[in-house]
């Protein structure tokens, strides 16, 4: 019972803290969540976190909100999901409410913009760190297809401006066909 309450509290405080530091769009919360829930707390495994990312990206709404719903649901069911949603929307709600009272002054404040410029570089470093770790894991599979999918997706997103949902759909089909063909070739004990 006490342990349960502790879990809810940790869940709520963790999402609250993550949301308060998610500068620069929804993608940023994914690496932060991964650090917290996969590496630190061990509540979610690496594969699940990637699946969550795919689901969060292809569902409507803010990625940060979607990802925290998935984490909350995984850890503590529907109550957990509601808790993490509250944790995620509370910081922006409070911060924007305060700022909207004197937003012109905030926008033109030199100290604020210096700190923001520094933090942007910090966020970029956090994401690079995570991409390095995750990208290495893809290469470690020692298969050509995942690496090709990764590089092709990057090119599609980056240079061709292809819609992310389309990429996710196509890669899902590629994955399904690949596992079907491999299953056929290597008998039924194959597991992707």
């Amino acid at each position, binding site marked *: 019972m006490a342990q349960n309450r502790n879990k809810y509290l940790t869940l709520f405080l963790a999402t609250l803290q993550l949301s308060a530091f998610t500068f620069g*769009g929804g*993608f940023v919360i994914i690496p932060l969540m991964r650090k917290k829930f996969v590496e630190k707390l061990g509540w979610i495994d690496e594969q699940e976190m*990637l699946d969550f990312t795919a689901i969060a990206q292809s569902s409507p709404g803010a990625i940060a909100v979607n990802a925290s719903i998935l984490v909350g649901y995984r850890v503590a069911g529907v109550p957990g999901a509601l808790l993490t949603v509250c944790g995620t929307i509370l910081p922006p*709600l409070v911060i924007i409410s305060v700022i909207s009272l004197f937003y012109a002054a905030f926008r033109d404040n030199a100290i604020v913009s210096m*700190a*923001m410029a520094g*933090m942007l570089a910090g966020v970029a470093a956090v994401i690079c760190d995570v991409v390095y770790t995750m990208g290495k894991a893809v290469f470690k599979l020692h298969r050509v297809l995942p690496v090709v999918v990764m590089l092709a997706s990057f090119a599609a997103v980056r240079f061709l401006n292809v819609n992310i949902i389309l990429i996710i759909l196509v890669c899902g089909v590629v994955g399904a066909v690949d596992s079907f063909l491999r299953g056929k070739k290597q008998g039924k004990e194959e597991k992707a």
Partner: protein
Amino acid sequence: MIYLELLWSFFQIGLFSIGGGYAAMPLIEHQVVELHPWLTMTQFADIMTIAEMTPGPIAINSATFVGIQVAGIPGALVATVGCVVPSCIIVMTLAYVYYRFKNLTMVQGVLSGLRPAVVATIASAGLSLLLMAFFGQKELPQDLSTVQVIPVVIFAAAFFVLRRFKVNPIWVMCGAGAAGILLFSVFPVAA
């Protein structure tokens, strides 16, 4: 009934913005500037700037801002709730389906195809932020000498600390913010 209007407008924004904050921008503009006389275009541009400078999803930030301007704190709450309700319903349903069928070989095949793509999309978003930090724009500029030195230094230090010591990213970001104030004050740039 202003609360219902706010709720409905932001419900639609939540429902139809797929693929993150930048996808939500045009929808928000349509709802709060064109369809309803809630914000002027200047106010809309301001809230987008603030949304980028402050933590949290752009849709949530603008819901709160518009709600407050239109109907005070209760307005902010109603707009924000409207914005997240579609996510709650749809994502929880998907989560249920995911855990129900996760172990099917077919589903595993689909998911294993997705994972490298997800890494790629994060890498692309990360690159945009990196260029934003270094050059103040999302694309690599023609003239590479426009690079800002201070963010490059902060980035390199932050990346080193993260790889080498596995520090909590939140402390890295606080440190980066403090370093920003310090370095930009000592070496002012014309910006």
